[in-house]
C-alpha cells in the first residue's frame, strides 16, 4: 500500500506538470473555456428555439427529448478534446524529444503512463462536467417542462467518463506506435470513427427512450456503458503494456512495410524456436514447429476449455427453461420418430446425410480462420463469443432431448469422432485466437507489440493449417466413409 501510494504520488507529479502546461496553452485553454461556459448557453438557447418550433407543429415529444440529447452533446464535445491532449501529451512529447529526459529518470513505466493518462483526462473532464452542470442549471432555471432525472444524468456523466477513458487509452496505443503528432492525428480516426458511431447509438437511445419510465432505454445505456468500459479496460491494459521505454523509443509505424510484415508473419508461421529459426520440411514442421507453438499456447488452454464448458452449460441451462422447450416425439430416435419431424426427416436420405457432414466440415473449417481473423481485430474476444454460439446449441439440444425423455446415447455415440478430434481442435483454435488479444494487452517480457502480435498470429495460423485442417479433414472422412455407412446399416 505504501509502495502504491509512493507510485501514485510520482504519477501525480507528472499529472500536475502536464495539466499546468495544458492550461498555459491558449490553444487548449480557449476551447475549454468556450465549451464550459459558452456552449451550454448556446445549447440551451437552441433547445428553447427548437422547443418553440416543434411545439408549434405539435411535436412536443421531440422538444422534451432534445434537452437530454443536448446534455449529452454538451458533455461529449469537451471530452473530444481529450484526444487532442492525449496525443499531444504522449506523441507530442516524443516528437519534441522531451520524453527521453523523463524516461531517463527512476520513474516507472506505470507511473509515467498513469500520470500522463490522468493529465489527458482531467482538463476535458472538468470542462465537460462544468458544461453539463451549467446546462442543467439553465434547464432547471428555464421554462422547459422537462426536469433532469437523476438516473439519466448519472448515466450521461458516466458515459462521458467512459468515453474519455476509451479515447485517451486509444490515443496511448496510437501514440506509442508513431513518432509524430501528424501521424498520430491521422491514426486517431481509428478512435474517432468508432466513437462517433457509439455517440450516434447513444443519441438514438436517448431520443427514443430518454426517461426512467423506459427501462429498456435505461438498460441499453447501462449495457453500452458496460461494453465501453470493457473496451476501455482492454485499451488501458494494452496501453500500459506497450507504454514502456523500449516500445516508445524503438518503434514507429509511420511507414508500413507490408513485405516486411508478411516476412515476419511467415517466419513466425514456420518458427521452430524463439530465436526465429524456421522449419525447412514438413517433417520438421510436425517434429519441431507445431510442438513449439503448442507449448506456447498450452498455458492459456484453460480459457478455451472453460469457454467450451461454460457455453455448453449455458445452452443446457437455456434448454431447460420451459419457455424454450419444444414438444418432441418420445420416439425421435427411431425411424418412425425421425420421419415425423420436419427437421430430422431429410436425414433419412443418404445424400442429405453426406451433405450435412460436408456442411459441418465446412463450417468448422471456416470457424478456424474466422476465429483467427476476428481475434486479430477484437483483442481476442470474438472467438470467445463465437464458441458459445456453436457449443451452446449442443447444450441446448441435449437439454431439450433429455427434458422430452429421449435417450441421447445414440447421438453421443455418433458424435464420438467430433468429441475426440474436432472439439479439442476447436478449443485449441479458440485459445490460439484469443491469445492474439491476450498477448498484445500484456506483452511477454522482451517482446515489442509487433513481435508479440506476429508471434501469436503465426502460432494461430500454424496450428490452424497444420493441426486444425488435417484433424477436421480426418474426422470428415471418418464420418463420411465409416460412420455414415454404419448408420445406414443400423438404421436401414
Amino acid at each position: 500500500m505504501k509502495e502504491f501510494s509512493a507510485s501514485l504520488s510520482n504519477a501525480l507529479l507528472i499529472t500536475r506538470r502536464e495539466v499546468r502546461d495544458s492550461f498555459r496553452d491558449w490553444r487548449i485553454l480557449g476551447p475549454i473555456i468556450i465549451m464550459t461556459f459558452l456552449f451550454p448557453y448556446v445549447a440551451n438557447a437552441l433547445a428553447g428555439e427548437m422547443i418553440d418550433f416543434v411545439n408549434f407543429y405539435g411535436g412536443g415529444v421531440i422538444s422534451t427529448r432534445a434537452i437530454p440529447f443536448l446534455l449529452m452533446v454538451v458533455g461529449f464535445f469537451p471530452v473530444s478534446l481529450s484526444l487532442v491532449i492525449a496525443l499531444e501529451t504522449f506523441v507530442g512529447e516524443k516528437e519534441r524529444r522531451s520524453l527521453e529526459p523523463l524516461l531517463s529518470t527512476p520513474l516507472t513505466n506505470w507511473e509515467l503512463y498513469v500520470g500522463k493518462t490522468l493529465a489527458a483526462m482531467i482538463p476535458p473532464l472538468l470542462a465537460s462536467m462544468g458544461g453539463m452542470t451549467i446546462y442543467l442549471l439553465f434547464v432547471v432555471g428555464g421554462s422547459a417542462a422537462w426536469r433532469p432525472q437523476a438516473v439519466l444524468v448519472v448515466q450521461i456523466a458516466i458515459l462521458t467518463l467512459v468515453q474519455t477513458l476509451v479515447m485517451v487509452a486509444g490515443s496511448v496505443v496510437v501514440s506509442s506506435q508513431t513518432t509524430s503528432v501528424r501521424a498520430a492525428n491521422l491514426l486517431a480516426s481509428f478512435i474517432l470513427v468508432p466513437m462517433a458511431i457509439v455517440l450516434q447509438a447513444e443519441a438514438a437511445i436517448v431520443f427514443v427512450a430518454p426517461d426512467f419510465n423506459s427501462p429498456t432505454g435505461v438498460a441499453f445505456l447501462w449495457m453500452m456503458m458496460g461494453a465501453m468500459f470493457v473496451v476501455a479496460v482492454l485499451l488501458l491494459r494494452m496501453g500500459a503494456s506497450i507504454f514502456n521505454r523500449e516500445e516508445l523509443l524503438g518503434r514507429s509505424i509511420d511507414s508500413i512495410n507490408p513485405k516486411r510484415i508478411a516476412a515476419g508473419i511467415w517466419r513466425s508461421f514456420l518458427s521452430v524456436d524463439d530465436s526465429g529459426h524456421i522449419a525447412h520440411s514438413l517433417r520438421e514442421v510436425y517434429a519441431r514447429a507445431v510442438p513449439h507453438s503448442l507449448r506456447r499456447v498450452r498455458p492459456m488452454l484453460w480459457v478455451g476449455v472453460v469457454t467450451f464448458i461454460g457455453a455448453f452449460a449455458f445452452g443446457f441451462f437455456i434448454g431447460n427453461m420451459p419457455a424454450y422447450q419444444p414438444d418432441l416425439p418420445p420416439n425421435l430416435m427411431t425411424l418412425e420418430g425421425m420421419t415425423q419431424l420436419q427437421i430430422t426427416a431429410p436425414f433419412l436420405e443418404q445424400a442429405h446425410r453426406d451433405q450435412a457432414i460436408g456442411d459441418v466440415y465446412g463450417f468448422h473449417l471456416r470457424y478456424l480462420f474466422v476465429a483467427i481473423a476476428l481475434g486479430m481485430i477484437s483483442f481476442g474476444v470474438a472467438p470467445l463469443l463465437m464458441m458459445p454460439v456453436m457449443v451452446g446449441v449442443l447444450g441446448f439440444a441435449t437439454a431439450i432431448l433429455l427434458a422430452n425423455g429421449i435417450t441421447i446415447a445414440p447421438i453421443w455415440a455418433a458424435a464420438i469422432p467430433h468429441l475426440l478430434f474436432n472439439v479439442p481442435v476447436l478449443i485449441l483454435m479458440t485459445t490460439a485466437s484469443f491469445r492474439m488479444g491476450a498477448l498484445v494487452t500484456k506483452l511477454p517480457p522482451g517482446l515489442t507489440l509487433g513481435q508479440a502480435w506476429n508471434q501469436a498470429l503465426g502460432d494461430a495460423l500454424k496450428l490452424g493449417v497444420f493441426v486444425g485442417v488435417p484433424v477436421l479433414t480426418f474426422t470428415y472422412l471418418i464420418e463420411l466413409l465409416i460412420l455414415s455407412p454404419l448408420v445406414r446399416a443400423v438404421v436401414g
Partner: protein
Amino acid sequence: MIEAKQLRKVFDDFVAVEDITFSVGTGELLAVLGPNGAGKTTTVRMMTSILVPTSGTCQIAGFDVVKQPAQVRGHVGVLTEQHGLYERMKALEYLDFFGRIYHIDRDTLKKDALRLMERFDLTDALDRRIGDYSKGMKQKLSLVRALIHNPPVLLLDEPTSAMDPQSSKLVRDAIIELQKDRRTFLITTHNLAEAQALANQIAIIRRGRIVARGTFEELRRRFAGEPLMELRVNGSLSGALEAAAGLVTIQEQGENWLRFISQQPERDNPALLAKLIGLGVEVVTLAPITQTLEDVYLNVVKEDEADERIQRIAQ
C-alpha cells in the same frame, strides 16, 4: 564505475549494437566517437536502462542495467542529444519538477539549482520562459538538469554541440572540474578536438561495433603511424633528396618541402640538417607535424571501410 560487456542490441532484424565491451573507472572520461547511426545513442540508451540489451551485461555504479533499472537511473545524469526542455516553464520550475522526481528536498533543490544556474552562467535568465532561451542556453540548462541530483555517472550526448565557443569552454571547464570531483563520464561527440582534450579513453564506434579503443596516444600510434617531420627549404630540394633519403624514410615531397618518418628524431634530425647545410641547402623550418584525433579517426574509418568492402566481396 561503468562496465559494459559484449552489449548487443537488435531491432527486429537490424543489429544496432554488436559486442560492445568497455570499462570506465571512477573519475575517468570515455569519449565515444562515430558517424551518425553508428550505435552511440543506442549504447547510451542501454546504459540508462531505457533500452534492454538483446544480450550482454552492463553495470553502472554497481547496478545492473537490466535487473536494477531504477537504481541505475537514479545514479546517472543524462544529457540527451536533443535538449528536450518544457518550453512553457521557467528554469527553476523545470528543475524543481525533475528534482522532485528524484525526491530531493525543496530547500536543497532550490540551493543546488541556483548554484548550478550560476555555475553555467544562466542566472540572468531565471525569470524567462525556457522557450525564449538561445540554443546554447537550452543546452546548458539540460546539463544543469542532468546534474541536479548530483549523480556519480554522467552520460552526455553531444554536450557542446549547440554552443558558442565561450559556452563550450565553460562546459568543458565544468566537466574537468567534475572529473576532479570523481565523477565518471561517457560522452558521445563529433567534436574531435574536445574529445582529445577531455578524454582519458576514446572509443570509435562504427556499424554498431567498437573498431578502436584506447588513449589518444595509443590510438595515434596504432592508426596514425610514427611521428611525421616536415622540412622546408629556400629554393629547390631536388639536389638534396638523395642525401636525405639515405638518412630518413621520405613519405611525401614537394618542390621545396618534404615529409619524412623518423624513428629517432634526436639522432636523425641533426644529421639531416648537417648534411643539407653541407650541400648548401638553406633550411627554413624543420618541425614535427601534429597528428590530431581527426587524423586517427579518419584512418580508423578508412581501415574499417576497407574491411567492410572485403567482407561484402567475401559474402
